[in-house]
Structures are given as C-alpha cells and as structure tokens.
C-alpha cells in the first residue's frame, strides 16, 4: 500500500503566471458597489486576488473592512459567489467549503470541476483570532484552498485598534501616546508567514505580497491556487485611515515598506525559500535598504516618535537582515543555537 492516504487529492485549476501586465485578463470579478476609503489598498488586493483566480472561484470573507465596507446588502461588488464568515473563521470557512465541494463531487452529487476556494481575513482575523483555525487548515493536505490575509496593521473596521499585526510603537485607538507613556504598543509585529512555514512543513506554499507590485501579487495567488493543498498568502496593505496619510500615497508607502526592509517579499514553495522583487536585491546586497525613517515619518500613526524610537525601530529592522538565520523569515540567531 502507498504511504500516502487514498483520501488525497484532486487536481486544482492550472493557472499559469501572467507573463507581463498586458497579459492580465481584462475581466473584473470585484466590481463597483463597495464603499471602502479612498486609497484603500485592501480593496485593491481583493480586486487583484479575484482577477488572478478567475470566475470559477468561491470567496469566503471574514468580518473586517473587506466584508463590512464591501458587501452592503444589494450592492455586492462580488461577481463570484461570496459568503461572509466569522472573524476567526477564515481557515474553517475555506476548509468546510473545500470539503463540501470535494465530498459532493466524489459522491457524484455535484458536477466534477476544480473550483478555487479562497478565504480572506484581516490581520486581526488572521494573525490574532483566527490563527488556530488557519494553522489547523494548513495541516489538511487533501483540500485545495488559499487563505489570504490582508494586513492593514490594525483592527481597522472597528476604528483602528492594535492587533498582532500592528508595528511596534504605533498610535492606535487602543495604544495612544499619552503624557506618561509615549509608547503604548510594546509588541513587535507577529512574523506570520515565517511561523506558518516553520510550523506546517507539509504546507506546499506560503508567500508574502504587496499590491504595489500588482503583477507579482497576482501571480503568487495563481501559484497558490495551482499547487494543490492548503496555502497561505500574507499581503501588507497601506490603509490611509489607520496609517494617517494622504490616500494619494498608498502605492508609494507599500514600496517603502519593502525598500526599508520592514516587510520582506518572499515565497516558500515546497520548503524552498525564494526572495523576490526588491527584497531579493536587498538579500543579495545589490540594493541598500532605505532608512526606516523615510517610511515611518510619512505616516501620522508614527508622528509621536522621537529619534530614540526611530533608532530602536531601525535597530530591530537591521537585526532582521543581519542576524536572522533566514533574513526576514526566521528570527533565530545562530549564536542562540549555540554556534
């Protein structure tokens, strides 16, 4: 008998990478009807995500801006089937949907067809509340699905509160600077994708993306849907309301997050790590990281920072690139492993 269970696997859709912007399909599956803020990168992520996936897709969305501001009754922007799920349920929603479709097709109760299943969540829904269900879902190799976390670095929909995705020191409505304490947010941002990759060795694909690099972003989604099994993508999304900047600069701030090395771009496919975009150049020392100051001071949420805070932020970011065993991915220093 084969070691692999006969409960595995049907073929996922084969979605080849778009070879250049001009090859991207013109059809939109996330249309008008939403009421997100001007300059909302997360709304763009939705649009690109489903453009990449195509029409034979079911989308499940956790509570958060991308549900609340997107799907007002009678004005849904979703051209594909869409269903809300609970704040901590992106993993379970994807799993249940994929299991339902799989069982019905196997038993001849539904026409056989590879249908993409995508569940999205915010940083609150994904990095905090839904972590347990996401982790559990990534352990089920027989279901083809993608969980996409759009990370705007706060519980945005409930008025910008600190989450496990919020950066150190940031001003949120739960971590406001005050007369006695300038820094209320004492937690460093959670290293989601590194954690998932390290903790779920059988998961075939995880990646980080940023919609400032739209083509890369879409192609990562296509790969995640094509590879088979459960997959995860973490997207960093500038949020003009929560980050407090002119909506004009969303794209630029996304670029700065990468160029300063604060958010690395990489994918891990069958346990092989590949940096890409400017991150690759940074790792290969072909590009010098911009100072974090250039990024932080563009945003009102860091306006209370004094030089000392910026220095600390810079030092921690430097460590990601100079000390982590896998730069930007695995925060373990070799000396701590006794070398």
């Amino acid at each position: 008998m084969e070691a692999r269970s006969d409960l595995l696997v049907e073929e996922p859709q084969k979605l080849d990478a778009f070879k250049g912007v001009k090859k991207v399909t013109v059809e939109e599956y996330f249309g008008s009807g939403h009421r997100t803020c001007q300059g909302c990168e997360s709304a763009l992520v939705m649009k690109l995500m489903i453009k990449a996936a195509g029409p034979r897709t079911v989308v499940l969305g956790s509570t958060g801006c991308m549900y609340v501001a997107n799907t007002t009754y009678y004005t849904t922007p979703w051209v594909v089937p869409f269903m809300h799920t609970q704040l901590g349920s992106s993993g379970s929603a994807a799993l249940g949907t994929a299991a339902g479709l799989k069982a019905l097709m196997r038993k001849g109760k539904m026409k056989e067809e590879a249908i993409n299943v995508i569940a999205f969540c915010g940083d609150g829904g994904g990095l905090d509340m839904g972590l347990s269900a996401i982790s559990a879902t990534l352990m089920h190799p027989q279901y083809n699905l993608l969980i996409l976390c759009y990370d705007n670095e706060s519980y945005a929909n409930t008025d910008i509160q600190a989450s496990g995705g919020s950066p150190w020191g940031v001003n949120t409505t739960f971590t406001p600077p005050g007369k006695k304490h300038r820094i209320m947010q004492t937690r460093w941002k959670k290293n989601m994708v590194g954690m998932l990759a390290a903790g779920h060795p059988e998961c075939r694909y995880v990646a980080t993306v940023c919609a400032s690099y739209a083509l890369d972003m879409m192609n990562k989604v296509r790969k995640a849907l094509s590879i088979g099994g459960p997959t995860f993508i973490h997207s960093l999304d500038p949020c003009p309301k929560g980050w407090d900047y002119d909506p004009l600069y969303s794209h630029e701030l996304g670029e700065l997050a990468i160029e300063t090395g604060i958010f690395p771009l990489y994918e891990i496919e069958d346990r092989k790590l590949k940096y890409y975009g400017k991150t690759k150049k940074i790792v290969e020392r072909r590009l010098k990281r911009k100072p974090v100051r250039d990024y932080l001071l563009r945003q009102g949420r860091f306006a209370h920072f004094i030089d000392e805070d910026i220095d600390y932020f810079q030092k921690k970011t430097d460590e990601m690139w100079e000390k982590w065993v896998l730069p930007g991915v695995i925060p373990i220093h070799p000396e701590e492993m006794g070398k």
Partner: protein
Amino acid sequence: MAVQAAAQSTVGKSGADDREMLISGCEAIAHACRLADIDVVTAYPIRPYDTLMQMISKMIADGDLDADYIVAESEHSQFEIVKHASAVGARVFVGSSGVGWFYAMEALAVTAGLRLPVVAVVGNRALDDPGAFGCEHNDALAVRDLGWMLTWVDVVQEAFDIALIAFRVAEDPRVFLPCALGLDGAFLTHSQSLVRVPSKEKVDQFLKPYDRGSKLLHPDNPITIAPQVNEDWLIEIRRQSDEAMKRSKGVIEDAYRDFNRIFGRNYSPFLEEYMTDDADVVLVGQGTLALPVKVTVRKLREKGKKVGFVRLKWFRPFPTEEVQDCLKKFKVVGIIDRDYSYGSPYSGGILYNEFRSALYDLPTRPKVYGFICGLGGREVTIDGVTEMINMMLETAKSNKVDREVVWIGVRE
C-alpha cells in the same frame, strides 16, 4: 482498542440492515448518519458525545460510509466547517457537549441566522467549572432563542429515529433551520438497548437528498451570502426565521406521518402521554428522566393514585397548543427541569417558565410546580419523584402551592 472492537462489532454492511442491533444512543445516531449518507462531518473530543464520532470515523475507515471526516482543532472550527460545507450543498453532521457546545456558540448563532440545516447532537453535559461531566440540559438550551430546533430523546430507538427526522425537517426548504438532538449524557449516549435499524431503501423513501436550490453557493449560482444588512433589513430577516420556525411545526407533523407509515411506528410528534387518563396530577419533563418517572407513576397508580406523566419531545418549536390541550385537563402539573435559570421568575428552571407562559391564557389553569433535579448527572430516583408527586397530590386537595419551585434530592 476496546473502543475499536466495540465499533467493529456494530457496523453493519448495508446489506445487513433492516435488523435489530444492541447499540448505544451514540451508535444509533452513527447508524442514522450512515443511512442518511452524510457528506461532511467534523469531530472534536469531549465527553460524552464523542463516542459517536469514534463510531463514525470507524465506519468511514471501513468503507461503510463515504464522507469527509475532519478532526477540527476546536469546537468553534468544528461548527464553522460544517456551516460552510452546508452552504455548498453538503449534508452535514456535527456534535458536542457542555462547554464544547459553548465554545462553538458564535458559530451556532450564525448557523441559525444563515438558515443552514446543520444537524447536531448534544450529549448533554454540565458546564464546568467546577468540573463535571454529568448530564444537565443548560448546554443545548442555551441556543433556544436563536433559531435552532431542539429535540430531546428518551430511548435509543428514538435517538435513531429522530436523527432521520431531524435531517428531513432541517433540510426542508420551508424550514432550512439547524436542529440539535439532546441526548442525556451517559444515560442515553452510553446505554445500550435493542434498536431496529431499517434498510437503506426505506430510509431513502423517507429522506430525500438535500437540495439547497437557489441558495446554493457555487460558481454557477454566484450569490453573495450574508452581506451587511444592519437596520435596513435585519428585522425582516429575523421575521423570516420566525416564520420558518413556525412552519417547522407542520413540517415535523408531516415527517412523523411519513415516518410512522414507512417504518411502522406509532409516534405522536410533540408529546408522549403516560397514564394520563383521568389523572389529577401529572409530571412533565424531557429526556431520560422519563424512565424513573414512569416507574414511579406506575407504582403509585397501583396504589390508586391518579398520577401521570407527559414527556416533551420538541422544545423548539415549542408545541404551545398541544401543551395547552394536554395540560388543561389536570389539576396540578409539575415541570421537571434538569437545568437551572438563576434569577428567573420564581427562580424556576427554563422549562418551568416556558410551560407557565404557555398555560397563561387557559381559562382554567392547573396549579404549576417547578422541580429542579438531576443536575450534574445525579440520578433522578423513585424516592425523589414520589416526593414531587406527594406535594402535587397535597395541592390537588388543598388547591394551595406552598413553594412554587422545589429542588429535589439536594443535600442541605
């Protein structure tokens, strides 16, 4: 190992059905799930319901059932997974007990709100702390206002039968509401008796495939489910759920009619009356406490006491008219609660206050007692039941109730 052996001995090949089997409440429901050909089932361990999921996993491993079996990492996920599988058209089954059921509470609420016909078993268990696995009904009763149909079972055969009825009623497009089966922890989940397990052909006659129709989530039917409605629409949607719950009563009656015809039973849907003819006083309760109560009633009847018992089978939808028609005949009724509701009117149990409310509009009302007993799985004894009945017989003579709500069998 012991568990496996037990499971093996009870799994029948489909050809071997339509026969009597010595099985527990949990096994009976596992067989009902097999015959209902469920598509997706999710499991998480908690006593006492989880034996059921052990049975189902073995059936799948042995090829007696073809379903996707997902071992969830929490009850919240367990219930969310089946909720979503149901939305894409899968027949689903799930279950829990006590604090596990409460851990899933958010999912329970939205499953009903979304009108998804999830069928669940609750192996009733106390809500620790302090730690207790014994039977109490507060777990399942906590969803009584949310749009879950709730039924309580007395014996193993009924557990099997109601499981089939639950799928049929929940998945009826006139209803589309989830349904939970209350199985008294240990007393029913783990006690065995002979059960008639029918053939697949008969079950298929009774239970048609689940068809989600225009509500199916599928690329061929690209709808948006559960958009943000707020004050614009929510009250209308709540009203629709209310109408569905009201309609479920008729659908349950239809289902019992067909069930009795196809399987040769003689069930009445909502109430079972035991020795109520010419009774002055009757006890009312749900679940397995029917057994000690019936024994006590029979003994007291032998002594010439005019006592009887009424067992409630469906708590939601609550059979208001049937309850009125039945209970108006008696001088005194005593409602037995295996639950508590601190701070409620008269500090009575949940059933007590539901029944009092149902009786309020009768022109002549019986006197009503509330008896709280059997909490934490403590046995409901013949002595305890006799104590209740004696109080009621006294009231039948004096027409006076000294204490509306009495805790029975409690050390002072």
